[in-house]
C-alpha cells in the first residue's frame, strides 16, 4: 500500500482519540482554591478535573447569576456521530479514492471543526452573559454595562477573584494531528503520483 494511503487511514483514525481524551479544559484559580477548580470538556460529556469540581463551579457561579452547567447538551449527541461519520468517510477515502480526495477530507474537517469551535464559543458566550436578573452579586463594566463572565475562548483571563484558563487538551491534539496528517498525506500522494508518472 502506498505511504500516502497509510497516512490517510491513520489521519482518519486519529480523531477517535476524542472518545478517550478530553477536547478542552477550563480551569479556575483563586487563592482559596489551592487545588484549582477544573472542568474537562469531552465530545460527549463534561467531567470534573477533581471530584465535585463542576458542582463547586456551579456553586461559585450562582452568586453572579450564571446558569448551572448542564448535565448534557445536544452537542454531546451530535459531535460523536460527526466524528464517527467523518472517520468512516476518511477510511473509505483512504482505501478507495485517490489523493485529491484527501484534500477534500481535510477541508471537510476544517469546516466542521471550525463550526464546532464556533458553537463552543456561542455556548461560552451565552453561559457568561445570560445571567439571572435576581443574581446575588451584580457587577458592571466601567461603561455601566452589566459585566459578563464568559471564560476565555482560548487563553487565560481574570474574572473577579478567579484567573480562568481555557486550553485544548489531548483530544484536540488528536483531532488536529488527524487533520494535519490528511493534508500531509495529500502532498505525499501528490508526490508519489508525480514520481510514479516519471518512472512510467
Amino acid at each position, binding site marked *: 500500500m502506498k505511504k500516502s494511503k497509510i497516512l490517510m487511514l491513520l489521519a482518519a483514525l486519529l480523531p477517535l482519540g476524542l472518545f478517550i481524551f478530553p477536547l478542552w479544559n477550563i480551569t479556575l484559580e483563586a487563592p482559596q482554591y489551592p*487545588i484549582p477548580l477544573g472542568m474537562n470538556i469531552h465530545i460527549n460529556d463534561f467531567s470534573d478535573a477533581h*471530584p*465535585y469540581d463542576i*458542582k*463547586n463551579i456551579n*456553586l461559585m457561579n450562582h*452568586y453572579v447569576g450564571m446558569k448551572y452547567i448542564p448535565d448534557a447538551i445536544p452537542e454531546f449527541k451530535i459531535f460523536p456521530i460527526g466524528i464517527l461519520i467523518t472517520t468512516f468517510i476518511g477510511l473509505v477515502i483512504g482505501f478507495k479514492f485517490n489523493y485529491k480526495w484527501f484534500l477534500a477530507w481535510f477541508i471537510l474537517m476544517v469546516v466542521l471543526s471550525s463550526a464546532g469551535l464556533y458553537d463552543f464559543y456561542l455556548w461560552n458566550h451565552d453561559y457568561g452573559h445570560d445571567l439571572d436578573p435576581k443574581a*446575588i*452579586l451584580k457587577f458592571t463594566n466601567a461603561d455601566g454595562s452589566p459585566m459578563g463572565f464568559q471564560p476565555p475562548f482560548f487563553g487565560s483571563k481574570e474574572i473577579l477573584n478567579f484567573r480562568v484558563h481555557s486550553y485544548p487538551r489531548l483530544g484536540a491534539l488528536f483531532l488536529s494531528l488527524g487533520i494535519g496528517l490528511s493534508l500531509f498525506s495529500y502532498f505525499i500522494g501528490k508526490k508519489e503520483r508525480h514520481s510514479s508518472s516519471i518512472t512510467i
Partner: protein
Amino acid sequence: MKNTFKISLGFLMIAVAITSCNNGNSSKSKGALSSSAAEKVYIAPGEHDEFYAFLSGGFSGQLAVYGLPSGRLFKVIPVFSVDAEKAYGFNEETKPMLNTSHGFIPWGDSHHPDMSQTNGELDGRWIFINENNTPRIARIDLTTFETVEILEIPNTAGNHSSSYVTDNTEYVIAGTRFSIPIPQRDMPIKDYKGNFKGTLSFIKVDPESGEMNLKFQILMPGFNYDKAHPGRGKSHGWFFYTTYNTEEAHTLLEVNASQNDKDFIAAINWKKIEAYVNNGGGKKMAANYAHNVYDESTHSATSTMKKEVIMVDPADVPGAIYFLPTPKSPHGCDIDPSGEYIVASGKLSSNLTIHSFTKMLDAIENEKFAGDAYGIPILNFEDILAGVVEQAGLGPLHTEFDGEGNAYTSFFISSEVVKWKLGTWEVIDRKNTYYSVGHVMIPGGNSQKPYGKYLLALNKITKDRYLPTGPEVTQSAQLYDITGGKMELLLDFPTIGEPHYAAAIPADLIKSKSKKLYKLEENKHPYAALTDDDTKVVRNGNEVHIYMTTIRSHFNPDNIEGIKVGDKVYFHVTNLEQDYDVPHGIAMIGAQTSELLIMPGQTETFIWYPKLVGVWPFYCTDFCSALHQEMQGYVRVSPKDSDIELSWGLGDDDE
C-alpha cells in the same frame, strides 16, 4: 503527722540541693538562645510541619494535634469530654460515644496516646488513648482525626497503665492503678490487704477494622499498676508493668506506699496467656461495660453493653508472669528499641534501674527465684540487672529513645531531661525544663524505629514562663533538638489541659491519607436529606422531624410553620457541600444544647423543645461564604392547641 513533717523536711533539703546544683549548670547552658533556635522552628506561612504531634489533654479529656517543630495547634480532637464547639456528646449522633456502665459521662481524664504499629514501626492508621477516671480506651482514626471507638474497661479503677500498643498492634492494653474488690462489693476499706485485686486488660485490635475487643483480663495482687510498655523485637510477646504500693496500703499512700525498698515490675508473657485463653482457658465472669462505635457511613455512634469477660488467674498459667524487683515505687517502664533493656524509673530514687531481658529469661530458665508474691515468682534483683545510671537526677519518671543508642529520661523533682548512653550507663548531657517535666516524647520513641530528631518535654508547671492569666496558667511543652551531642532547647509552647504523654509521627506518613470530605453518596444516615427533594417536615405525635439541607448559602427549608409549644423538634441537618473545608453550622435560639458543626456530606441532629409562642430564628454559625449572614431561617411556634398545619418552604417568594 510526724511522718509528713519528716517528708516535707526531706523535700526541702532536696530542693536546696537542686537549686545549688542548677546554679552551676545554668551559667554554662546559655548556648540555646545564642544559636539559630528560631530558624529551626520557623515554618514559613503556607509551609507544613515535619511531624504531627498528638498531646494528651489530661483533665480536658481530649487529644490535641500540634505540628512540630513549630508547636502550632491544629485541632483538638474531642475524645472523652463533651465539646460544644463540635457538638461532640451534644448531638444525637455522638451521645452514645460517652455512654458507660455508669450512664452518660460528659468528662474524662485522657493520659497516654499511643499509635498503631506494624513490625514495630509507626503505621499511621490509628491512635489510641486511655481514660483514667472512668476506665476506657478510645481509638481515633487518622484519616478523619475523629474518635471512632471507645471501649470501657471493667474491673478496673484508674486506668493509668494504658494505652500501649504491641509491635503489630495485636493488643492495646489497660491496667488498674487502684486495686478494688473484684467483683465489686460492700466491704470495709481496712480489709484491703489480700482482698483487693488489680486487673491487667488485653484488648485485641482487629487488624483490618481496628475494632477493639477485650480478650482477657489477668487478676493480679492488689498493688497499684502504674505504667507499662510492651516488649519490642526480641522481647515481643511480653508486657512490662510497673507497680507501686506493693505494701498494699489503703490510706495515706504517700507514706505507707513508700516503705518498701523495692516494688516490682510485672513481666507478663502475653503470648503464653493468649494461647491459654485460645485453648479455652480462663473463667468467664459476668461484667457490664460499654462498647461504643462510630459508623462513618451513618455518621452515628451506637453503644452496646457487653456482659462478660474472661478472667485469668495467674496461678492457672504457671510460667507466664514474674515479678522483677525494682527500687523505689517505679513509675515509667520503658523498653529500648532493641527490646533488651527495661528501663525503670524509681520515682523516689536518684538512680535509674535497667533490667536485662536476656538475663530475665536466663533467670527464669534456671528458676532462680527469690520467693513469690501471691504465688507469682519473684526474680533476684542482681540476676536481672543490666546496669544503673547513678545519681542521674531526682525523681525520674519516663524514658524515650533516639534509635542511636541513647536514652532520655525526665526528672520531675530536678526539672530536667537527662541524656544517657545505653550499655555504658553514662550521663552525656542534661538540660533544664521549665518546670517539672512529666513525660518526654521522641517521635516514634517507643517503637523499634524512633525518628530521633526532636524531643518534646511535657511540663506540669509554667509559673512565670508566659504572660500571666490569673491563678490558672497554662501547662506547656518544650522542644529540644537532639541531633547533636548536646540537647538544645528550641521552643516553648502552651498546651491544652495537662499534657501527660504524647505521640508523634512524620507528617508524610499520614497527611496524604487525611480525608477532605464525606461523600454524599455514601451517607447512610437514616434522617439524611441527600438532595433538596428529600427535605421535609414530619410530625409523629408531638415529635417533629425536620429533614434539612445546607448549601451555600441557605437552609432548606428555611421557613417552617405548624410547630407547637410542647413539641420535641429534631433538626436533622445534612451538609450538601462536596468541597474541602466548607462546613456549615446551625444554632437555634432557646435550644438547650450546642450548635451543630457539620462537615461536607455529613448529617447531624439536635433537639429543640420550643417553650414559647412566637417566630424564632436559626442561623449558620460557621462563616461559610460571602452570603453567610443571609444564611438563616424562621420557625413559627404556635400554642399547644393550635390547628395550624405543618408547612415548610424555601424561596416561596415575597411577591
